[in-house]
C-alpha cells in the first residue's frame, strides 16, 4: 500500500507542477465569470444558463485532465525511461498500475474539488442558495465516473506506445460512450440479425458513463439522486475499474522493457 501511495504522490505532484490544470481552471473561471457578468434580456433565470455552461466546462475540463494525465503515465515512464530505476526497486508491475490509477484518480478528485468550489461560489453568489448536498453528490458521481475513465485510459496506456495516440483514441471512445452509449439499445432494434445482437452486446458491455451525469438536477434544482442509486452506481463503477485495471495488469505484467 505504501508503494502504491508513493507512486500516487508522484503523479499528483506532476499534475500540480504542470500547467494543464491551471490553464483549464483559469479558462473555466474566465468563461463562467464573463457569462455570469452579462445580463441577457433582463432574464431573471439567466443564472441557470451560467450554471449549465459552468458545469459543461467542468465536465470537459475534468475529462481533459483525466485523459491527458493518465494517457501519458506509462508511455512517458517508458519514453523517459523512469520506469527502469522504478522497477529496479522491489515494486511489482501490479503496484505500478495501481499507483498510477490512484494518483490519476486522486488528482482528478482534487481538481474537481477546486472546480466545484468555484462553481459553488459563482452559483451561490447569484442565487443566494447553497444546495451543498447536491453539489457533493454531483462531485462524487463525477469523480466515480472519472475512475472508470482513468482505468480505461490506463489500459490504453499499456497497449499504445505513444501518449498522443492513446489520448486521442481514449477521448474518442469516451466521448462516444457519453454521447451515443445510451442510444445503442434503440439502434440495435433497427438492425437486422446478427448485427442487432452485436450492438446489444456492445450496449451491455460498455460502461454507461452517462448515468453519472447529474448536471440537469443541479441546473433545474430537482433535488438529490436516491442514495441507494448513488451507492449502486459507485459499485457499478468499482466493478468496471477492477476489470479494466486487471486487464491493464495482464498486458503490462509480461511486457518486456528494453533499455
Amino acid at each position: 500500500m505504501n508503494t502504491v501511495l508513493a507512486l500516487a504522490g508522484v503523479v499528483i505532484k506532476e499534475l500540480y507542477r504542470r500547467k494543464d490544470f491551471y490553464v483549464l481552471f483559469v479558462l473555466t473561471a474566465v468563461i463562467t465569470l464573463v457569462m455570469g457578468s452579462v445580463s441577457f434580456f433582463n432574464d431573471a433565470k439567466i443564472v441557470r444558463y451560467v450554471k449549465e455552461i459552468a458545469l459543461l466546462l467542468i465536465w470537459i475540463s475534468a475529462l481533459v485532465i483525466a485523459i491527458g494525465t493518465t494517457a501519458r503515465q506509462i508511455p512517458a515512464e517508458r519514453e523517459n525511461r523512469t520506469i527502469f530505476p522504478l522497477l529496479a526497486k522491489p515494486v511489482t508491475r501490479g503496484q505500478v498500475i495501481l499507483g498510477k490509477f490512484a494518483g490519476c484518480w486522486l488528482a482528478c478528485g482534487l481538481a474537481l474539488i477546486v472546480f466545484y468550489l468555484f462553481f459553488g461560489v459563482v452559483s451561490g453568489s447569484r442565487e443566494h442558495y447553497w444546495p451543498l448536498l447536491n453539489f457533493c453528490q454531483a462531485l462524487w458521481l463525477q469523480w466515480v465516473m472519472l475512475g472508470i475513465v482513468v482505468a480505461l485510459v490506463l489500459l490504453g496506456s499499456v497497449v499504445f506506445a505513444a501518449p498522443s495516440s492513446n489520448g486521442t483514441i481514449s477521448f474518442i471512445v469516451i466521448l462516444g460512450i457519453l454521447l451515443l452509449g445510451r442510444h445503442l439499445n434503440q439502434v440495435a432494434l433497427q438492425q437486422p440479425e446478427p448485427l442487432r445482437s452485436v450492438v446489444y452486446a456492445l450496449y451491455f458491455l460498455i460502461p454507461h458513463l452517462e448515468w453519472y451525469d447529474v448536471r440537469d438536477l443541479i441546473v433545474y434544482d430537482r433535488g438529490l439522486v436516491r442514495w441507494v442509486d448513488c451507492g449502486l452506481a459507485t459499485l457499478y463503477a468499482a466493478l468496471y475499474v477492477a476489470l479494466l485495471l486487471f486487464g491493464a495488469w495482464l498486458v503490462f505484467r509480461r511486457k518486456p522493457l528494453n533499455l
Partner: protein
Amino acid sequence: MRVPLKTMEPIVETKNLRVEFRAQNSGQAKKVAVKDLNLSIRAGEVFGFLGPNGAGKTTTMNVLLGFVNATSGAAFLFGVDVREPIARQRIGYLPELTYYYKFLTAEELLRFYARIFGIRRAEAERRIEQLLKLVELESARQRPIKTYSKGMQQRVGLAQALINNPELLILDEPTSGLDPLGRMKVREIIQRLKNEGKTVFFSSHELGEVETVCDRVAIINQGELKVEGRVADLVEKHQANLEQIFLNIIGYEPQLSV
C-alpha cells in the same frame, strides 16, 4: 580496508542464461542477445562486466533487474529468482543515463524511493542527508532535477541507488558521458563502497577504470562469455594489459595506415 567476504554464497548468479529477441521481419532469424551465460559473483566483490556495444551486457543486467524475461536458464540475486520483486529489496541500480522524474527535486526523489523501500521517515531523512553530502548535492537539494547538469544528475542517480543501503550495486556504465572530474568523483564513490564491503556489479567501457577498481572481470562478446577471472591473473596469463586482452577477444586488429 576491505571487509572480508562473509560468505561464499553467490550474490549474483546466472545459470545457462539465454535471451532471444523476436526478429523484426518475418524473414530474419531470432536475435540471440545472451548465449548460455554462467556468472557467479560473491559477496564483497567488485565485478566488472565488459564487452563492446551490443555484446549483451545491458540485456544481462535487464534480466537481473526483471525488465526482460530470460528465454531459458535462470538468474538469481541473493539466491532468489530475479522474477520475484523481493530479489530487488537489497540492491541499488544506477542506469547508464539519468532516468528520473525531472519535476522532482533531489530531496523529493530520494524521499520517494525511500518510501518504496519502506524506510521509516526519520531514518529516510537521515539517509537523504548523508547521501546528499556524499554526492555533494546539498546546496542543490531543493532544485528540480531538470535544472541539474549531467554530472549532477548522475550523482543523484548514485544517491538513489544507495538509499536502501544496498548490499549489491548494479551500475550500468556509471561514468558514461561524464567529464574527467565527474568521472573521478563517481570512481571515488565506487572505491568507497568497495571499502565498505559492498558487492558491485558494473559494466563499463573505461578499461583503465575497471582495472583499478575491479576484483574480477568478465568479457562478453556477441552474447557469449569469453573470459572471466581476476584482473591480475588475466594480465599475467595473457602477458598484456586489460585493454589489449579486450581488443584481442573482440577480434580487433589495429589498422595503422590511415
